[in-house]
């Protein structure tokens, strides 16, 4: 029929977006919703980077060399596969830490009376760029080897921020204690 073929697919796409944006939330999600969200619940902003010493131990080059010399080739291969899987999981954790930081930036913007357009645009683009690069790094970890000192540097960047952000969170939580409760999030 006239126009139906080219109006129905966009209409379905719009309704899907609408459903995604307005979908009902679980009671647990409602409790931690709003700009302060998870931060208000007392969770640390950055969590996974703290486990880097253990990860470093698990991925150390000395261990890898020892495995290559002492273990049968099949066992060494299996061990390397598992080590790469650990690195990928850790990268997933760092990704979560990055997202938390980004979310914290949005929360501070939402609760601020003045917001800088350039800062917000930059953070939005940084988030997009991060997701893209992270996917490529994950692929690289999946297919090959990633030097441990590079991951250590990434962890260090997050670590430097952690203490400062947690201090800021204490300040924000104190101010937001007066926040009205009972509204649900988008």
């Amino acid at each position, binding site marked *: 029929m006239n126009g139906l073929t080219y109006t129905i697919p966009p209409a379905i796409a719009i*309704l899907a977006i*609408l459903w995604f944006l307005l979908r009902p939330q679980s009671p647990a999600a409602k409790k931690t919703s709003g*700009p302060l969200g998870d931060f208000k619940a007392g969770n640390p902003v950055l969590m996974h980077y703290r486990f880097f010493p253990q990860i470093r131990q698990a991925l150390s080059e000395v261990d890898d060399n020892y495995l290559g010399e002492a273990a049968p080739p099949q066992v060494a291969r299996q061990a390397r596969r598992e080590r790469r899987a650990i690195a990928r999981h850790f990268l997933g954790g760092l990704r979560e830490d990055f997202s938390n930081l980004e979310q914290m930036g949005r929360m501070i913007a939402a*609760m601020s009376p003045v*917001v800088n357009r350039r800062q917000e645009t930059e953070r939005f683009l940084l988030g997009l760029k991060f997701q893209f690069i992270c996917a490529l790094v994950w692929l690289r970890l999946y297919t090959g080897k990633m030097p441990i000192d590079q991951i250590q540097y990434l962890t260090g960047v997050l670590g430097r921020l952690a203490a400062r952000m947690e201090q800021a969170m204490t300040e924000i939580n104190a101010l937001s204690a007066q926040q009205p409760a009972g509204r*649900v999030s988008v």
Partner: protein
Amino acid sequence: MTHYELFLATYMKGFDILLFVLVYSRHLQRRLPFFAVYATTILVTNLGTTFVYAYFGFRTSISFYAAWIAITATLLTRSFAIAELCSDILAGYRGIWALTWRVLGLLTVAFLVDAAIDAQGQPHWIQAYGLTLERDIEIASVVILIAMLLVGAYYRLPLDPLQRSLVTGLCLFCVIQIVNTTVFRNFFTQYISSWTTGQSQLNLMNNVWNTVYIAASSLCIGLWCYALRKPLPEPVQAPVLLPAGLYQELSPELNLQLRSFNDRLLELLKS
């Protein structure tokens, strides 16, 4: 007026009256005055056109113009209600509102200009012109509502159940109407340009358009009535905002670290 059209008109009036009563009994006009005006306009235009149809006949030029005046008034008040809803959801967050209202305003202007240009290209028949304008304004309404929801989701701004129902109803109605109006407009422009379609087919299409319009209206008014079935909770206080200095201090620092994290990841990829 056929029995079918009479049935549709009566059925719709029932819904409109229910919405009108609920809006004023819940004192929604205090919180969302433009939405209350919109609900009133729906009822008044429906009653007015019914009166005109009954008095002057259904297929007369007076009825024709009355119907178009009703559509224009409804579109106008709905547009104001949408703007008010955006403000109701975002304005409490002053920084975000200052950032987004211009974007939403620009989007509105862009879509209105596009609607005017699109309608200008139509044959000089009020139906084709009006239908094009109506469809484009509905597209603009959906885009603005979705942009506002995206901003809200990005910053995790809260949305209360009433706001959620109003947005859902408005979006559903506009989306269904976009499809409905596009199909009818295409049929109509084809009809007036070639005169190959018979009057009976035009009447049939008109009935289909009316039925879909009534179904879409019932769906969204039903949603709003459901949301208004219980007294509204006390108005939520404006959120307590942080000192402006905190954002100015933390935001650049945060972005710097995120940027260095990204740069390092990029180096890692290149190495």
